[in-house]
């Protein structure tokens, strides 16, 4: 059998194999995806009881999930966090309700010593965390205010979970602040609000017009920034805010300080609007 024939045979066999695998892959892909989604949803529900729907909240480099009950009210947050344990990263999910009390904890992935550190997965350990607040999260033997019993002969792994839960509370606070800022517009009465921010060369003053819980216009009253940076910032930021109705946005690359000055000024105006939210509007447009 000459070389060409051998090559063709091998190519043929490999092609058939590739086709078969592709067919099976395409058929199992939706099943695998659906299962992962269902599994994830099941875990979320078991951690935050009473929540029926979850909304993904993506911040700059962090992620959390807001849980809503059947009436659309917020029940709490589900927070994926991790910490470094004895055998590597320990991944967990924590549920914390709107009052800052832990509703559930689940270890998703761990590589601790089997039979010893791996006991952190057992409900006898993680059930200790339910109903606790941030101040209670410490090992009893390391902090008199702590309420958690470590696992015998697995202190390092126990401490890892403590660290993870503490990370969870940090993430919780970040998420709450973030969503609060995003929802601020719902609490502002219609009107024009002025705000100031510190730019690179001086103050930036803006006027933000709010009507029907939306930002309808952003006017620049005064600035002292360098022209080349200002044009970059002016063409990017107000437009983005008007489009997304979200005042939490990123600075423009290459003009960070000017960008932050403008963003701060807009935040400042919105804060003025918040304060005026319960009282009659300060000025008419």
């Amino acid at each position, binding site marked *: *059998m000459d070389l060409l024939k051998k090559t063709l*045979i091998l190519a043929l066999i*490999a092609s058939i194999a590739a086709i078969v*695998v592709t067919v*099976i892959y395409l058929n*199992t892909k939706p099943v*695998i995806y659906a*299962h992962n989604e269902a599994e994830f949803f099941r875990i979320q529900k078991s951690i935050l009881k009473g929540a029926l729907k979850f909304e993904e909240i993506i911040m700059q480099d962090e992620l959390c999930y807001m849980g809503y009950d059947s009436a659309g009210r917020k029940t709490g947050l589900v927070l994926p966090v991790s910490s470094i344990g004895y055998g590597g990263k320990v991944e967990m999910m924590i549920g914390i309700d709107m009052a800052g009390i832990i509703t559930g904890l689940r270890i998703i992935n761990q590589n601790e010593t*089997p*039979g010893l550190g791996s006991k952190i997965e057992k409900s006898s350990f993680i059930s200790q965390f339910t109903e606790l607040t941030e101040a209670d999260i410490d090992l009893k033997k390391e902090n008199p205010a702590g309420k958690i019993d470590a696992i015998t002969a697995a202190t390092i792994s126990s401490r890892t979970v403590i660290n993870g839960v503490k990370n969870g509370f940090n993430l919780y606070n970040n998420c709450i602040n973030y969503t609060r800022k995003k929802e601020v517009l719902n609490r502002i009465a219609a009107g024009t609000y002025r705000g100031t921010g510190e730019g690179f060369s001086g103050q930036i003053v803006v006027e933000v017009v709010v009507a029907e819980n939306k930002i309808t216009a952003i006017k620049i009253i005064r600035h002292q920034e360098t022209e080349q940076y200002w044009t970059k910032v002016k063409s990017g930021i107000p437009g983005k805010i008007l489009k997304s109705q979200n005042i939490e946005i990123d600075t423009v690359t290459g003009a960070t300080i000017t960008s932050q000055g403008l963003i701060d000024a807009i935040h400042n105006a919105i804060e003025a609007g918040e304060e005026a939210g319960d009282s009659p509007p300060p000025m008419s447009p």
Partner: protein
Amino acid sequence: MNRFRIFTNGLLKENPVLVLATGLCPLLAVSVTAINALCMGIATALVLAFSSTTISILRRLTPEQLRLPVSVVVISTFTTIVDLVMSAYFPVLHRALGIFVPLIAVNCIIMNRTEVFAYRNKVLDSMLDGLGMGLGFLFIILIIGSLREISGNGTFFSSSQFIGYPAIIMVLPPGAFIALGFLMGLAQWFRNRQVTDRHE
């Protein structure tokens, strides 16, 4: 060799683990619990049976030079199929077995049997050999998995714990070697007895 002999060969006389001493790595790593061992055994047996059959079908097409590449392609195709089907329909077990499902592709039993048997024999014979060897492997991994789970964890097929203070070493790597060593010793003792019986 008649067909039945070919099949039973893999179960006892030339059991891949106890006699040929191949396929030990996944055996030792996965046999921590009975259910994991059972699934690994079934997955390996399926890949072995299908691979042997397919390679036997292709044997006239594959000259000496192409045997290794064709083996690799065929065995990894079946391994991938088993991997995908497992992760779609048995996701919990698939996660428990982890990386050892894809590693079935380089399981020595499969590479060995396809080279030694499947390339030189008819399709039906190869299929029976694959099945026999696969079941022989399944048999042993299931025994060792059960042994390790009962003595090292106090449970059986994830039942509730019925041994208060299990010997944890049995679910750690040394326990795997200990269990396998005992089983191999037992098998050897049986074989020696058979020889002396026949001499009497």
